[in-house]
Structure formats: C-alpha cells, structure tokens
C-alpha cells in the first residue's frame, strides 16, 4: 500500500530553555496559562506555528488553546512592532486625555490600536493602568515610561526611537 503525505506544517525553533520549561510543566495541572506566558515571553507574541508546536508538546488541543488566548487580552496573536507603544486608558489617564494620545498616534503613524506600522517599527496597544497615575496621561514606548504626555510632544518621543 502506498502512503502519501500532504505538506508538513511550517516549522519553528524553540530555545533549549523554553523546551525545558515546557517539559517541566508538561504534566502539571493548570499548566496551559503558565506555558503560554513563557511562550509569549520568548517570541513577544504567540506565532501560530509555535502554538501548534506547543500544543503537540503538552498534548492540549489547539482549539482549546485558541479559546484561551483569544479570551485573555494579555495574549497577542500578531507580532508587535520593534517598539510597542502602550497607551494607558485607565481611569486617571483616560480623564487626562489618554484617548487623545491614541488619536495623535494614529495621525502620526497611520495605525490604530492593535496595529503595526508597515516598517514593523511601532505598534500601538491600549492598556489599563501601568501603575503611575500621578504621571497621567502615561504612555510606555519600548518599555520606557513617559509621563504627562502632551500629544504635541509625541513626534519628539517617536523620533528618539526611530534612529535606534
């Protein structure tokens, strides 16, 4: 009998540290969220090929994993920009004009929330409270916190990262 195969799925490399982390958690109940956090830490988001590979490693159906990662906002299904811009829309920042920052970013970068610029440099994300309400409105660019952000100062802030 002849056995024919269809094209194999796209392959993805896991670092040894990630593999041993998954191995450690593999058989523990409630491991899914734990492993997903670690996976997102590794890739910055959850690439489909990586999720498929992980699904096989921990023997959890892909459908179940997608149920979880589309439920929790923390998990990202798309690759973020090199510099992710998190704009706080928590109560204080919202009242101080957080929405204006998002609006101005759209004017400047041409992208809305959860989108990435064509050059892959920036992505915009709305978050709820980064824990420094006294500095409202707050934006975090590439991990660096900017307080009392004036939308008019945004080009200056972005310029800092463009040259990097």
């Amino acid at each position, binding site marked *: 009998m002849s056995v024919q195969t269809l094209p194999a799925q796209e392959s993805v490399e896991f670092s040894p540290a990630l593999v041993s982390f998954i191995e450690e958690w593999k058989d523990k109940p409630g491991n899914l969220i734990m492993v997903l956090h670690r996976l997102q830490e590794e890739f910055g988001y959850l690439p489909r090929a990586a999720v498929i590979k992980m699904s096989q490693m921990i023997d959890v159906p892909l459908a179940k994993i997608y*149920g979880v990662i589309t*439920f929790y906002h923390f998990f990202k299904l798309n690759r973020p920009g090199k510099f992710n811009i998190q704009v706080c829309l928590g109560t204080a920042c919202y009242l101080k004009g957080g929405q204006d920052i998002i609006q101005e970013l759209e004017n400047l970068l041409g992208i809305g929330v959860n989108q990435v610029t064509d050059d892959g440099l920036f992505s915009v994300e709305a978050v709820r409270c980064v824990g420094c309400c006294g500095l409202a409105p707050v934006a975090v660019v590439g991990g660096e916190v900017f307080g009392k952000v004036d939308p008019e100062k945004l080009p200056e802030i972005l310029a800092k990262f463009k040259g990097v």
Partner: protein
Amino acid sequence: MSTNVMKETKTVNIKVNGKSVAVPEGTSILKAARLADTKIPSLCTHPDLKSWGACGICVVRVEGSPKMVRSCTTNVVEGQNYITHDPDIVETRRTVLELIMSNHPNDCLNCPRNGSCELQALCAEFGMRGVPFEMGIRDLPIDDSTPSVILNPTKCIGCGRCALVCQQMQDVWALEFLNRGDQTRIAPAGDVKLAESPCIKCGQCSAHCPVGAITEVDETRKVWNFLRDPEKHMVVQIAPAVRVALGEEFGYEPGTVVTGKVYAALRRLGFDRVFDTNLSADLTIMEEASEFVERFAHGHGELPLVTSCCPSWVDYMEKYYSDMIPNFSTAKSPMMMMGSMIKTYYAQKSNIDKKNIVSVAIMPCTAKKYEIQRSEDMKSSGYLDVDVSLTTRELARMIKQAGICFKDLPDEEADSPLGTYTGAGTIFGATGGVMEAALRTAYNMVSGQNLGKVEIESARGMDGVKVASVKIPVGGKEIEVKFAVAHGMANVRDVMNQVKQAKAEGKELPFHFIEVMACRGGCVAGGGQPYGSTDEVRQKRIAGIYKDDNRSAIRCSHENPAVQNIYKEFLGKPLSEKSHELLHTHYFVRPLYVK
C-alpha cells in the same frame, strides 16, 4: 443469586409545584420536573451532553429561596419543593428569550431550520411579538469550506452544544469558542476554515445545533436539476440507516422500517433505477471478510484489521492515527462500492453510457458528501462514482416538495441487479453491525460452515466500547477472533491505545478486528438523520434495524444471490485484481491543521 454488587442509587423525595415525586439522587431539577409531568424550557442543554447552564432559560425557584437557579445544572435536594412556573419566572425566561432574539437574525422564512428550530418553537410558545431591545446582529462570514456542513456564526446563540459534541463526544476539537463577551463566536482554532481544521465532517454539530447556525450543505437543487434533464439516467441508492429514520419526518415512530415506501417515493421523484446500499454492504463484507481471513488465517498483512466504512472515521484516522494506516481495511464503503458498481457493472450490463448516468446516494451522513471526492479512487469508473450524496433530511424535503403523501405510498421493491440484500447488509446501520456481518461471513470462509446462531449479541448495544470474541472451528480445533467495537469518536482513543501499547511491548494483540463508527449508536444517529437523536431514539432505530435483519430470509452476505452474480459475471472473486481496482482505496497522512 447474582454475585454482582449493584451500586445502590439513593432515591430523593422532592416536590415539583407541590406534586410529590421520587427521583434518583443526582438528577437535575430539569429532568426531575419532566418526571413530574412538567416541561421546563431549555435551549443549551441536551441529553447527550453534560449540562453547563449557558442559556439561562431553564431557571426555577426553590420554595422559600428568593433567587432563581438554572434547573439544568442544579441537582435535586431531599425535601425541596421546586416552583417551575410563576409570573416572575416566566417573565425572566421571556427576557432571556428577548435578549437572545436581540442578536439573532429575524429571517426565519429563509432559514434551513425553519420549522425545526428550537428557538423558533420557544418563541412560538412564549408568543413573542417583538424585541424591546436594540438589535445587535453581527455580520460574521459564513464558513462553507467543507462539502458537508455550513457554519453561519451570525445565527449562533452561544449555547455551546456544537463545541461540546465536537470536543467531548467526538474528541475532534475542530470547534471552540473564540474571543469573549459580545465578540464570542464559534470557530476552529484561529482564523482557519473548517476544511483547514481537524473537522471530520461527521455533522454531529449540525445534528445538535438548536438553531440554523450549523446545517448540512443542501444539494437538493442539484439533484432536482439532474432529475429534470431528460439526457440523464438517474440511479439512486439508499443506506441501511435511512429506512429506520426517514419515517420520522412523516409522522412515524423512530425505528419504523419504511424501506418499501422509500423505494416508491424515489421512483415518484423521477429516479430510473432504485438500488440498495444494503447490497453493496454485502459486497463490502465479501471484500472485508476476505481481507480479514487473509490477514488473520494466512498471515498476509497487519492485524488488527480496522473497518473503514465510516468516512468520518477514515478522516479521523488519517489525521489522528495515520500510523495505523496499514491496519485499515482497504475496502471502500458500501456507498462507494455501489457507486462503482452502478457506473461499471450496471452500465455494462444494461448497455447505458456511464457518462449519462447520475448516481445519487441517500445517506444518514454529512461526511458522505466529503467522501465522494476524498481521492481519485472515488472515480474508479472514470467519472465520479457517486455524483451527489444527500442526507436523510434532504430526501425528506424533496419528498415534501414533490407533494408525495409518504404515508399513503405502497411498499415497492428495489430494482435488479443491485437491489437484493441480506440481513447482514442491513445491520451496517447500527453500531456493531459491520463486525457482526463480517464475522458471519468470515466464520464461513474459515470453517466452511455457517454460525449456528447468526446473532452476535456481544457486538450489539449502546456501550461505547464493546469487547468480545467469537470461536471458529478449524480442523477439530477452535481459533478465537477477538474483536472490539467502538462508536462515538471519543471512544476510539482507548481501543487504539491498547493496540499501540501491545505492539510497542511486543505483547499479544488485544483484538484482531476493530469496528469504528464516528457517531454514537452508529449510522442510525448519523449527522444527516432527522433531528432529535437521543439515546432513546437511537435505540428505537437500532431495534428497527435488527427487526429488518430478523425477518430477512438470507442473513449472511456470502449467500446474497445478487452479490454472487456480481462476482460470477463481473469481478471474478473477492480481492481479485478487478475488485481491487473498483472496490478498494488508499489512505493518506493528513495534517490536523492545513494552516
């Protein structure tokens, strides 16, 4: 006295609206109320599935408590009195219904479930005349990527039955809820279509969906067009399980055997020849039993032999157990064998150009729509061996559209040369039937004599996995054939694991022969059967199948005179070169996810 210690089930005494009733411990209030002649409306719950309280329409009150509880997920407690209908409760249910309706499209007249929709029925009962909320109907893309089912998430009410069936009963995991809140929708994992997912096309989601969110792909128009074309020679076959269920669409009890009336109805629809898949089930047995004897008695090929008539199981095996491909019977399903015989043997015998023959199959199954084009082997005649496969539900609609008064039809006979069947062919429709039919013939092939008692009771019944054996006398000794029968896809894992483990450890095989049917109960409760399959209905249909077997004059496939003729006039013998060319197929390793 029996030595078995029965686990005592405690009885709980409760009241439903003041009426005393005793029910087993662990019964839900919903079920208990039914035992007290009271129907509590429900939408998400289903007897096949574990209730999970998604819709909230089944709320009741425990007397003395101000709050309402969902009766499907709350079990009875000794001494309590449950109020199932009071003005507050009825108004709450009405609000639930109104909220569901506020994001459900209002186009019942164009919906495939018009007349069979559970939501529509509830709205009628409640006398709904409008929705007092702002309407918020989402416009989500329809998934018509498979030839079997259509997923229209806009109509989904979020009850979750499809996902539970797909995950728990079938262990397929094609469907899951994605996103959250008002963005929640039913879909495969990520932005892929069903055809790119592990979906096995069994259609159990469509059989369990209370509304029109998942339905079979309707191909009745295609068949009407063929029937209206005078150039076409229309040939039809009906599957074993159709005859015990189609009657339900016309007011018969489940399990009523309406074979003669189906033949009559098909002729009145305009088919030129009416053949019976039961005959090709006999043919399947000739090939598969020969294959089994080759492997079991002569050591040619892998054991255990695994049956392959269920297209959903074939698809599942190619995705989940592709390492077991060598164990799979290469015999095609009865439907495909009949299709092949129609366009080769029958075409030749009756001197009709096969390019003008349209071969239609009436099946209890949605996966059959996929099977007819699953590989090049399905075109053994040079054309599609089966042009269209309709479900039982679609045939019922055609009969109604044609104005045929089904109940008044006379009983007619199927046509020659592909109409005569045996009891062995008919039992293919029930779980364990293929195994029983195959063993009836394999027994004869090995021992040269027929089983004293042809009924193999151990293969029958609703247990998810049935394990037993049959002893066959050979030359003064007896050899034991150990078999397993699994139905409901989730039950197959344990059987396959036992085989894999025995092989890995070099131990004796736990089974020599395995039958698998994707749907619980077998084809009688296939995804294309009339709505409302529950275990009660399954058992009635199965009883109809065995009744048909019991009253058959011939009950072993190898004794079917029409099948003997096919071998004599056309195929030679089972497993001949010609049989292989026309009646056998190949399997492929398929990825769970194409994307």
